[in-house]
């Protein structure tokens, strides 16, 4: 299999192009699957929310939620820029924006931790009522996704520093970007659903 081994070493641009298409399809399938995962939670939440009187006001601090929304949107921007510069082969800026995204993700989790502390101090545990059950379920799983994204970002930052990526090969950053934007999307719906409506 010497011919095969040789192909493994010299990867043509065509290989990268096809491989990129496969990776993108893979991540979109994964995101489709994630959509269905949150569909179950949101569907359940819709049922519970519509059973409650429409006048019920959500017992959460809107400003914390709004702050976190802006934090996540900003992190989406920095992620998009990281992807943009990784495609240019601009390693420095890519690394900078990856680090920035990572820090914003940290911010998000810190704000979330402050909120959780307040809930616990007020005795609002998941078992308090069905609203807090859903609140902790939805934000908990979203938080786990943020955490997963942070781990990915950390690894990518390190790999980028090591010089793994170049103009032709930057798929992991692009894929992580798509995932990160999806995490942002989930929050875009979570915020009005839990804090505002």
């Amino acid at each position, binding site marked *: *299999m010497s011919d*095969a081994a040789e192909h*493994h070493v010299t990867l*043509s641009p065509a290989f990268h192009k096809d491989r990129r298409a496969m990776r993108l399809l893979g991540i979109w399938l994964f995101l489709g699957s994630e959509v269905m995962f949150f*569909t179950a939670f949101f569907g359940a939440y819709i049922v519970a929310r519509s059973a409650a009187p429409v006048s019920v006001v959500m017992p959460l601090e809107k400003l914390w939620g709004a702050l976190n929304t802006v934090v996540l949107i900003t992190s989406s921007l920095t992620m998009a820029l990281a992807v943009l510069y990784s495609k240019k082969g601009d390693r420095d800026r890519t690394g900078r924006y990856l680090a920035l995204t990572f820090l914003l993700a940290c911010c998000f989790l810190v704000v979330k931790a402050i909120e959780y502390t307040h809930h616990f101090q007020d005795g609002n545990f998941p078992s308090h*009522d069905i609203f807090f059950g859903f609140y902790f*379920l939805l934000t908990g799983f979203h938080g786990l996704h943020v955490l997963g994204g942070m781990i990915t970002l950390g690894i990518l930052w390190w790999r980028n520093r090591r010089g793994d990526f170049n103009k032709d090969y930057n798929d992991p950053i692009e894929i992580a970007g798509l995932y990160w934007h999806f995490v942002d999307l989930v929050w875009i719906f979570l915020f009005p659903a839990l804090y505002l409506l």
Partner: protein
Amino acid sequence: MSAETVNAVVDLIHPEPTSFFRKYVWSYDHKVVAKQYLWTSLLFMTLGGSLAMLLRWQIAYPNQPVPFWGMLLKGHFVFDASGAISPDGYLQLTTMHGLIMVFFVIIPLIVSAFGNFLIPLHIGARDVAFPVLNALSYWLYLPAGLLMIASFFMVKGAGEAGWTGYPPLSDVAGAVAPVWGMNLVLIALFLAGFSSILGGINFLTTVIRMRAPGMTWSRLPLTTWAQFITAIFQVLATPMLAAAGAMLFFDRVFHTSFFLPHGLVIGQSEPVNTGGGYPLLWQHIFWFYAHPAVYILILPSMGFASDILAAFSRKPVFGYRAMVISLVAIMGLGFVVWGHHMFVSGLNPIMGMAFMVSTVFIALPSGVKVFNWMGTLWGGAIRLEPPMLYAISFVSMFIIGGLSGIFMAASPVDIYIHDTYFIIAHFHYVVFGATLFAVFAATTYWFPKMFGRMMNRKLCYLHWGLTFLFFNMAFFPMHFLGEAGHMRRLMTSTGYEFLNPMAPWNEFITLSAFALGLSQIVFTYNFIYSVFFGDPAPANPWESATLEWTVPATVPHYNFKVIPTVYRGPHEYSSPEAAPADWIAQNAPPKGAAH
């Protein structure tokens, strides 16, 4: 390898491993992963089957000590102090039999094992699209299976809320369901679901992006088509199960109340004061996954049967296009019929009617498939090799299982036969009768390619005869029991006067089931013996036309030394072009064309 004809991506390869660990444990090779899945799921099948034997014993001989095992494990696991099955034990048996068979035997066996092995070989690729994810999916599945087994060792035993896990029975930890037994089951399902999603993403990407040059969608073998459609279900339906399981886990561990109604009374307790939730919510989410899962259990088998029937009738499959369209139609309809499991749960009657209509519509593509299989057989030069016998049995058992399904689909009839032995008969005809016969067909058919050896034909015939006979003896009478009102999951029928006349039937079914279980020893022996000592197989023992038969009997690490170019459909049998042979391989260039 000429760069013009070869899609660059098919160059994808990983070096052949040399260490034992990378070769057999953490292997990226799709063939090794397939075999890992095959062996593990066959092991789980013996476990799931044994559980079924135990519960059949209890039904036929209520509260009598189980021979041997009861003496040995008296007072442990599912046995009470006298060695008979305890009430909790009985519920654990039904629950774990169902869960193990569905999630740890059938899905890994037909989808992960055969899908992994066949898809790259069928489409002319060197491996699946994401080999690392493939290895990961197996190593998520195995711990999940071990957790299932571990749940038997927990205090108060394994999960006992039925495989459907309906709340509130499954929901209140410690009160009506064992605490960690059920929790472990939920974690195991979450892991198995994740493994299944990774597998599905892999298969879809592989089929969409890695087909060899010339392998158009209309030239895919039907097995691969079926695996492709199944993978869509896996990717888009399985997350619902994970989500439902997560919510149930929250209910049990963090005492939320997603599925617990307000003021629930358990036994003698005070009403449970919860935030107020909806038990029916679980049914919606669960069946939105579990109905597509039912098609995950049958579609790949349909694919196996289509290819095998064509190969042994020496005819192209009848109506290839209709076969594909019906697969797609089943997929589309499969997502909008989940409510037919909820006809007696207080479902909105208008919705009930909609679900009834959509369910009855599934008979249409299923019927198309059945008639096309018969059309394939019609006028063929039939070779009754073991795979063919098993495949024909698949079709006939599928007809019975499919027809009894129509009874269930009609909501007025369903209200009467819901949760009776009729439904047990129905889904065992589909999942055991149809799917497992297709698995036997696939195993005997692709065994030479998997292990480079032939299975013993005589033992195959013997196994087929015994299984076909005892399967029907065990499951056909269940239709009568169900019609007479015998409830499913009933521990002792002696307490009900109207069930007393059915006791002889129950004994008959149990004895047939034991015989059915014993018959599988023939297959197990044949399988294991042939893996090590079978006759060496030629590269193409069945004279089949699909690509996997063009590689040597022991498939090399890279499958295809040169990626093949495909010129024709998957079932070119009895083509005049081939004379004097009666088949042409998919990669044979047309006559007169330069190679």
